[in-house]
């Protein structure tokens, strides 16, 4: 592995390009710990499934016949054929079409064609290899290849409190994901999106065109941030970080609602709801006001669930979808959809410009000159040296690169596979 890949302030830029390092990441960052695999409402009914990924490994999240959540390998144990080709659906059995083997929703092999040529023993361990660990926290489902991984709640730590705020941002109302997602790929390493989702420094510049539109439409120039004031960043440990504007940004976010088609109608009232409740639900449309990044592949931004899927060392898939109220009302959910579409998706007014920056970074990395990539904004000399592994949640200003430092500290910890590593090594 590359020496001094992260020194607390900067990263060896080859960490975005090195194939051997990427392979190690798939093992140590993705397979050795918890990875987000979906929302419980994606697979609400018995037999509902969604194809998911643990790093680059194709898996299937499925609601099994006993109601449990299972994550199976999407790979026939015989010759390795995928058993599921579509992103979601409902099944009683998975079937490999190559030689006709079938599997139940818990991954057990229930049908081998012409089995008489096999001994019992030869078939006993051949199944869809259910992952040893699947747990959910407040609707968010995580899985791990590592049977020794600590509990999900230990892994989340203080990040769970932010997850609670996210889930509770519409009061007691339950939330669900949309069946469709916005999906795009970019020509760059997966870590670029992890950094960007909690980057409080870029918005005024990368997203200048969006703020100009909002200024024109709302009559208020509400820049996302100023240099020092407004909002905070926290390193929550285990690579989880948050960029928190919940105390400062709400009025600017609410102003944007006025630009949404259908907003004026909703303000007049919603059938079956008293007006304070309507106002609460309207005020909740931008979400709880923070960007939470759960290492290594989940970001909760506004009302959005973002999954980051590495495809190769220089190619990444990003899947985003808004959370809606599980029980409606439709008027509010439509506004939540419109709010999301305004900035996100392949033709949103914001997200494509982030992707362009990832492409430009990848272009700038060409040549592999062993440059450094810097995350030292807001480093305080008084801060203890990094990688001591034990420190209280660190706090910074909104534009500080503290969240990225938190991510890379965890990255280094896992990649170094040191004994202090929370999640331990894979056996």
């Amino acid at each position, binding site marked *: 592995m590359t020496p001094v890949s992260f020194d607390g302030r900067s990263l060896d830029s080859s960490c975005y390009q090195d194939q051997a390092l990427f392979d190690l990441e798939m093992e140590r960052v993705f397979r050795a710990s918890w990875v987000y695999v979906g929302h419980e409402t994606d697979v609400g009914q018995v037999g509902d499934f969604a194809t998911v990924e643990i790093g680059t490994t194709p898996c299937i999240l499925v609601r099994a016949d006993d109601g449990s959540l299972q994550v199976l390998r999407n790979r026939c144990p015989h010759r390795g054929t995928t058993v599921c080709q*579509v*992103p*979601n659906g409902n099944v009683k059995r998975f079937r490999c079409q190559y030689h006709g083997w079938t599997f139940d929703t818990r991954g057990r092999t229930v049908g081998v064609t012409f089995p008489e040529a096999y001994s019992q023993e030869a078939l006993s361990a051949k199944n869809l290899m259910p992952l040893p660990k699947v747990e959910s926290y407040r609707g968010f489902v995580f899985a791990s290849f590592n049977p020794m991984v600590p509990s999900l709640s230990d892994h989340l730590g203080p990040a769970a409190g932010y997850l609670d705020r996210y889930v509770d941002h519409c009061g007691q109302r339950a939330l669900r994901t*949309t069946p*469709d*997602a*916005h*999906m*795009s*790929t*970019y020509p760059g390493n997966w870590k670029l999106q992890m950094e960007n989702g909690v980057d409080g420094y870029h918005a005024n510049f*990368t997203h*200048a*065109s*969006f703020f*100009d*539109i909002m200024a*024109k*439409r709302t009559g208020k120039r509400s820049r996302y941030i100023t240099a020092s004031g407004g909002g905070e960043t926290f390193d929550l440990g285990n690579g989880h970080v948050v960029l928190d504007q919940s105390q400062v940004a709400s009025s600017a976010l609410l102003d944007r609602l006025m*630009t949404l*088609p*259908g907003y004026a109608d909703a303000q007049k009232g919603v059938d079956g709801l008293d007006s304070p409740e309507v106002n609460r639900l309207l005020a909740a449309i931008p979400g709880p006001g923070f960007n939470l990044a759960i290492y290594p592949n989940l970001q909760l931004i506004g009302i959005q669930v973002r999954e980051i899927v590495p495809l190769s060392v220089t190619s990444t*898939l990003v899947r985003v*979808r*808004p959370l809606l109220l599980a029980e409606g009302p*439709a008027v509010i*959910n*439509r506004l939540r*959809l*419109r709010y*999301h*579409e*305004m900035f996100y*998706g*392949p*033709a949103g*007014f914001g*997200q*494509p*410009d982030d*992707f*362009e*920056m990832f492409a430009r970074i990848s272009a700038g990395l060409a040549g592999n000159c062993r440059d450094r990539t810097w995350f030292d904004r807001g480093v305080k000399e008084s801060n203890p040296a990094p990688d001591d592994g034990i420190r209280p949640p660190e706090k910074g200003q909104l534009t500080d690169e503290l969240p990225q430092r938190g991510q890379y500290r965890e990255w280094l910890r896992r990649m170094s596979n040191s004994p202090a590593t929370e999640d331990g090594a894979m056996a």
Partner: protein
Amino acid sequence: VIDLISHNPRMVGELLSNEAHLLDIAEYPEWLSLYTADAEYWMPVDPGAADPADSLNIILDDRSRLEDRVARLLSGSAHIESPPSVTRRIVSSLVVDRCAHGHGSDLEARSVFILVQSRLGQQSIIAGDYRHCLRWEGESLRIRRKRVSLLERNVPVQPFGYLL
């Protein structure tokens, strides 16, 4: 009363060709003038989506948002289009019918497009279906609604700022 459908397929074809041309040469303000004041531009994630309101869409613009989109594109700070994409598109297989949802004289034009986009030497091909709802405003035929459907649901779509 003239039979609008039988008398105007050529006019519809010319409108669609003109729209394609204006988009390909990036004459966006003139392109916007082809649309009605209450126009809607819709590009669903799911090509089979029946209704825009309850769907997750790639684009669902009313007239104001469509003007915002053009303004952003022309601002120079939409980085995804800086430098801008160049596009050329073919719009074909046109079928004109009465519009099922609209005024009595509204027309529906269904067509297929194949578009080549080029930016910084990289080309990509995007294909799909257009469905235009057209409305007479005096002697002019304007676009009341445009729906752009891609070929597949649940597949990645390359981020873009130009208009399909």
